[in-house]
């Protein structure tokens, strides 16, 4: 069965620090990849997505992610975090055929200290 692993459960950073959140997936076929974010008190929102093409994708608010097929990874990065980036971040995967529901990782809680 497919699965998604997020290695960091809780990350604490100071403002202006760089961020990298790990995501690895276990899937047998071609995949679509997503990062969702949930700010405190708000609902899940799409941060960025990869369907095909350039493996380096850019999302909202200065976030980017790189798809490395050989490593089954889709890590999220931001060069300089802000206090407003405090949130929970979820990596998610779907197959490109058949069942298309998202399989989520367990999430990473990011706390940015001013």
């Amino acid at each position, binding site marked *: 069965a497919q699965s998604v692993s997020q290695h960091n459960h809780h990350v604490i950073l100071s403002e202006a620090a760089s961020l990298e959140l790990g995501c690895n997936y276990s899937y047998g076929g071609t995949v679509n990849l997503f990062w969702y974010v949930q700010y405190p008190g708000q*609902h899940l*929102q*799409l941060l960025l997505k990869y369907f095909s093409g350039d493996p380096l994708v850019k999302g909202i608010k200065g976030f980017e992610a790189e798809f490395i097929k050989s490593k089954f990874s889709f890590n999220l990065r931001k060069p300089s975090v802000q206090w407003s980036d405090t949130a929970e971040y*979820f990596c*998610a995967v779907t197959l490109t055929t058949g*069942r*298309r*529901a998202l399989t989520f990782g367990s999430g990473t809680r990011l706390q940015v200290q001013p």
Partner: protein
Amino acid sequence: EAGVAQSPRYKIIEKRQSVAFWCNPISGHATLYWYQQILGQGPKLLIQFQNNGVVDDSQLPKDRFSAERLKGVDSTLKIQPAKLEDSAVYLCASSPGTGNEQYFGPGTRLTVT
């Protein structure tokens, strides 16, 4: 564009009682999903509809959970009878079709005592 609407936002019930959640997807979205998110975990799919037909309900505990999407628009998810382990946030999401980006509602936080 209005987002995905869910109600109620919060619900507290005793075990063995029944509960129902409602979802109104974004207008025109053919695909609707119900997810269960237990505290400290990522959302897990319960059921997926395409229009008013079920695409995937393999992870739905059918002995106590049921869902329907009449007329291919609104959907309801029911739990009867509830167990303590059903305490979670129930998320509804919709997308224009399968394989597209999913848009999530605010969720219903269920506490079973």
